[in-house]
């Protein structure tokens, strides 16, 4: 992409909550791999007289998530009906949130390749998922087990300029959801879905926003998110370069052709006739109630941990990022660092981090013991010099080619091979530095 244009990307991200029950009825929310239409009732099948009652835990989780991603929590919120017809939508409307969502705006800080960036979030609201359609021959099959599963929608401002930023942001959201234990957020399984709005603006015209945007659907992995965005940017640049404006439309990512294709949209699709759902009284939380939710459910978030590891403990940034990819690993690492201090083992956090990532420290219930074992394994090895001397001679004799390659400078790494042979014959009971020195002397 030339500098002539600047990509303008805004995101709509759906994350399914892994609650036990659905959003508005007590049917089990776990639909993956279940027999079709076995988790339904009059409410989630949209039968006459079925009425929604919200799942408190879904609301609690959305509040926690909103707080964790740096957004304002609205003490008062309500649910609205969003109308459109589609067979996977049982009631002919989706219960969602329109003008009073649970979570308002905020900013999430994300490390993108070591650089701390801040992305503006517009809102997060809670809604219900639709059923699942499968197309087979001339028919469509519908399973409503997924219908009514709680779904958070995160909407960002159009603040992303590269697909890398998008990917980093998505990964951060996924990580936060998993840290909080509120969602599986697995894109491949459809627990997490991305719909980017993509457009290009002439760089000289910034900060004015472009006059069009293209929404892309059907993205089901981080990899495809990046590819779809890059494809779309290229496609739009070509159109703009021809002196045309890309039409405002919805396109779908086709994983087979690695392209985006236009999707047919129904007329009136944009007039959703939102209005408050009279079946659901409003919600009003007090500051104390919100605080209680934070106190119970909030955890230290990945970027906070990275800050501590890097700034306070001197861990390398890349290692810190890798450590926090899993909450279990991060917590174990912190246990190790604290055990190190308590037991006076005098290891550096960076040493522990590297060892943990290289699996040289066992995951164990007893971090002190694991740490001690690691320390012993790194202690210099007592070397049986007589045995070593004869092994070195044997290895040099039996690997003449490697010796020649090293001597002629054809392959400087040949010495590593020879070292490996020696260490193997010594069953690891030799100090690598001594082995190397001896080999060099005798070649």
């Amino acid at each position, binding site marked *: 992409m030339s500098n002539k244009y600047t990509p303008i990307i805004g995101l709509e991200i759906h994350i399914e909550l892994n609650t036990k029950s659905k959003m508005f009825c007590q049917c089990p929310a776990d639909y993956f791999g279940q027999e079709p239409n076995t988790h339904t*009732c*009059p*409410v989630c*099948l*949209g*039968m*006459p*007289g*079925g*009425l*929604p*009652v*919200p799942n408190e835990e879904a609301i609690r989780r959305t509040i926690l998530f909103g707080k964790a991603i740096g957004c304002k929590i609205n003490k008062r919120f309500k649910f609205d*009906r969003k*109308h459109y*017809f589609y*067979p996977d939508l*049982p*009631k*002919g*409307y989706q219960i969602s949130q329109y003008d009073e969502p649970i979570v308002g705006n905020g900013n999430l800080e994300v490390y993108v390749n070591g650089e701390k960036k801040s992305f503006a979030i517009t809102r997060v609201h809670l809604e219900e998922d639709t059923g699942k359609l499968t197309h087979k021959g001339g028919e469509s099959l*519908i399973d*409503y087990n997924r219908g009514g599963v709680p779904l958070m929608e995160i909407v960002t401002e159009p603040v992303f300029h590269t697909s890398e930023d998008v990917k980093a942001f998505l990964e951060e959201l996924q990580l936060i959801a998993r840290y909080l234990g509120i969602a599986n957020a697995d894109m491949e399984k459809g627990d997490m879905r991305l719909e980017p709005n993509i457009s290009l603006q002439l760089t000289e015209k910034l900060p004015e926003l472009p006059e069009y945007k293209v929404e892309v659907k059907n993205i089901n992995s981080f990899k495809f998110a990046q590819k779809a965005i890059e494809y779309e940017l290229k496609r739009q640049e070509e159109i703009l370069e021809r002196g045309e404006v890309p039409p405002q439309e919805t396109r779908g990512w086709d994983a087979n052709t690695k392209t985006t294709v236009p999707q047919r949209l129904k007329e009136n699709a944009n*007039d959703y*006739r*939102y*209005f408050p*759902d*009279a*079946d*659901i*009284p409003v919600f009003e939380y007090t500051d104390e109630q919100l605080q209680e939710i934070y106190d119970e459910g909030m955890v230290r978030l990945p970027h906070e941990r990275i800050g501590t590891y890097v700034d306070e403990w001197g861990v390398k940034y890349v290692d810190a990022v890798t450590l926090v990819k899993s909450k279990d690993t991060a917590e174990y690492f912190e246990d190790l660092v604290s055990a190190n201090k308590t037991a006076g083992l005098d290891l550096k956090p960076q040493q522990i981090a590297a060892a943990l990532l290289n699996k040289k420290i066992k995951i164990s219930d007893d971090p002190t013991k694991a740490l001690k074992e690691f320390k012993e394994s790194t202690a210099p090895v007592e070397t049986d010099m007589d045995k070593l001397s004869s092994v070195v001679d044997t290895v040099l004799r039996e690997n003449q080619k490697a010796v020649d390659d090293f001597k002629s400078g054809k392959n400087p790494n040949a010495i590593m091979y020879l070292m490996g042979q020696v260490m193997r014959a010594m069953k690891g009971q030799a100090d690598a530095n001594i082995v190397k020195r001896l080999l060099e002397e005798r070649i």
Partner: protein
Amino acid sequence: MAEIYGKGIVALKQMLDNKEISPTELFQYFEKRADEHEGKIHSYITRASVDYNADRPTEGKLAGIPIAVKDIFCTKDLRTTAASKVLDEFIPKYESTATARLIAEGAWFTGKTNMDAWAHGASSETSAYGLTYNPWDLDRYPGGSSSGSASVVSAYVAPASIGTDTGGSIRHPASWCGILGLKPTHGRVSRYGVAAMGSSLDSPGPMGLYTEDLALLLEVMAGKDEYDATTSPSPVPNYTADMQTKRTFTLGIAKEYIDDATPDIQKRIMETVEILKKMGHTIKEVSLLDPKYAISAYTIINRAEVSSNLARLHGVRYSNPRNMFGEEAKRRSMLGAYALSHGYYDEYYKKAQKVRQLIKQSFADTFQSIDLILAPTAPVTALEVGSFEKYPFFGEMMDRLNEPASVAGIPAMSVPIGLDGDNLPVGMQIIGPALHESDLLNLSYQLEQETDFFGVIKQGLENWK
């Protein structure tokens, strides 16, 4: 065997308890009456059998009591159509909370009564299953939308029934058929399993011949329901006991409501007021917001909710295709979509919600100085079949004195207070503050004791003996 004819459900329960009759015999008695009279009044869309009721609990406040159910309540394994071809073959696999509570107390269901399709109307004209006729004059409408639930009781084809009232659908047919009907506070009786018309307005309630019957039915059906988030958590009073302690009330009469009715109706109301004075009640003139605004607010909110609530009927899971909707359902859905659509939302829907607040406030202010409001139930008595065509806005015109209480979500009851010049029953509304059903029933019971509802119930029964 003692006489069954004309007995209410409390009295019938006594007969059952005394083993003067068995539940099956009692049920068969009403089956026979239906066989004889259904051809004339056409109250039912679907009748239920003894077999269908075979598993009912034998203990309970209503054990063995036959009750007719408006065809808008979903009844498990019993066809439920809402009087629309869209649900022509629908057999629910679940039970509405209101009917489930009746069943839990042992009630038997005689069948599902005819109604205006989706409860849209005040005559049964919009039913896909034909008209129901008024037992007082078979050439006249029974009122609606709980048409069959009113006529079935009026002709003693069932001793009591349940209906739903969104903008008068219990009170209006009760008044035209000369029986009692109570629309409870919105949220007093669960809406779960009742095909939704106007979610913020729908109120299921009892209909019958005696105040004590309504008290008992309400007692059983009312109360918090975990399946309906809008149900009131406040405890259900013992209505039957409450009504027997005679209380004196300050009663309000609103000019805005009286002026709307025919001279005959106004006269009956004034006569009733005189009697109430003599009984020791205080009468006060009050002023309320003109009902014409309530009609507009009601119409907008109702149509918006209708258009949304009927969206679930799209032929995929259980219903017939949407083109089978009748004219009225289409008309209402269209207007609702209009009021909610882009650019009109603020002008119509939001404005209506604000006016709703004004109406609520107007009632709340009025109830500062009085206990209950008295008003005609309908501006006219039962109209002749065919007059529906003459009024495009028929339902709203018939219900214009009912809709204010609906919009405010407060309880209102219709009781017979005599006949007009055409020998047709006149109904009077008793309107009270939210959750004051006890007061309504108390006053109704007093009128019943004092005047026997001016002989209306008795004469109605005489007509169909």
